[in-house]
């Protein structure tokens, strides 16, 4: 049977791609961010996942407003990156795992998460950069299943709903009959706001409390509505629902193995957490 070994939650700013392409990881601006990933890579080298299920939000590469699914699951043999319009390098395709994709899709719909299925799906920086941070040099060894949550067009699914989606994905993976080691990723956040007169808003105290409570008490964040979260964390800070989904997929005893928090990367409070999932 498949085993969920743990999860990594991280921010996903496009500028990270530019910094990697220009090899700026050791510059003072970037070093506190990139150094945070060293212990995660060490853990991954031991843990050896076969597949990564990635909760992320598309920023207008694959989906436009003509059709905007709330939850969508990739079911493609591979996932291509493409030009997002601002000049960060396009990364080579990532391998899919269609068996796991369809298993997850069938299980989710059976459990009343009526997701959109995508046999073709472009993946943007929110998917590619975290994989590149975990396995630099385009050496991603895992097959992938992207799960995209709409954060572009309101109404967004609530924090509580995203946590439940993650739990349903966790139950689906644990009933998959293949002997695969599965890593969960949740990418987005933490507090930031790109648009409006409040651009540049960051809320460090909220971010730290969110991180403090995520392992033992993920329900804490579900007391907030999406608009509460916009007010508390910024218009793009609501991407923290990806962290809730990823946390939800861990159904065992959760142990926090590592974290990093650094402000700012571009306009974003960058967060990173590694959770182990124990039986």
């Amino acid at each position, binding site marked *: 049977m498949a085993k969920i070994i743990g999860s990594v939650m991280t921010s996903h700013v496009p*500028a990270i791609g530019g910094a990697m392409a220009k090899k700026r990881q050791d510059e003072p601006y970037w070093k506190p961010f990139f150094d945070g990933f060293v212990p995660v890579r060490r853990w991954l080298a031991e843990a050896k996942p076969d597949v990564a299920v990635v909760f992320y939000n598309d*920023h*207008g*590469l694959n989906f*436009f*407003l*003509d059709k905007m699914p709330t939850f969508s699951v990739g079911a493609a043999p591979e996932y291509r990156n*493409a*030009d*997002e*319009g*601002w*000049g960060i390098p396009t990364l080579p395709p990532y391998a899919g795992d269609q068996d796991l994709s369809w298993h997850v899709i069938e299980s989710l719909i059976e459990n009343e998460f009526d997701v959109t299925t995508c046999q073709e799906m472009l993946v943007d920086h929110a998917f590619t950069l975290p994989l590149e941070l975990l396995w630099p040099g385009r050496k991603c060894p895992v097959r992938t299943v992207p799960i995209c949550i709409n954060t*572009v*067009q*309101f*109404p967004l699914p609530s924090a509580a709903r995203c946590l439940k989606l993650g739990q349903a994905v966790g139950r689906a993976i644990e009933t998959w009959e293949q002997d695969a080691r599965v890593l969960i990723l949740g990418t987005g956040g933490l507090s930031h*706001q*790109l*648009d*409006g*007169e*409040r*651009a*540049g*808003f*960051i809320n*460090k105290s909220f971010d730290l409390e969110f991180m403090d409570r995520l392992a033992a008490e993920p329900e804490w964040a579900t007391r907030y*509505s999406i*608009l509460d979260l*916009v*007010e508390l964390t910024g*218009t*793009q800070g609501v991407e923290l629902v990806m962290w809730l989904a990823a946390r939800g997929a861990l159904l065992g005893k959760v142990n926090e193995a590592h974290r990093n928090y*650094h*402000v*700012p990367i*571009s*306009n974003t*409070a960058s967060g990173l957490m590694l959770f182990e999932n124990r039986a």
Partner: protein
Amino acid sequence: MAAIRGKRSIEGTTPFDGAQARKGYALNKMCYSFNDKANRDAFQRDEDAYCARYGLNAEQREAIRSRNVLALIAAGGNAYYLAKFAGIFGLDMQDIGAQQTGMTKDAFKAKLVAQGR
């Protein structure tokens, strides 16, 4: 459930809801097209013709002409698509943040750093 129909106001913030999505459809569709370099080039070759092709209204056309991000948001623009428009001019998120807050770029960057303390 709280009463959800009344519009909640968050200072300096325009949630991209159904009303904004309806108002901004043409503008956002044009900005979405800027994922492709050929379209970015076509816009730069003939901005008027490109905007006309997407059916921008007068407010949207003027907001594009002025490169004013707050005006683009008021015209229904969504941050994620507008970022692709800004990319044509090589603007980064600190340029955009500085413009919207009326700060210099250095002051905006310093504000970001200060919030990490």
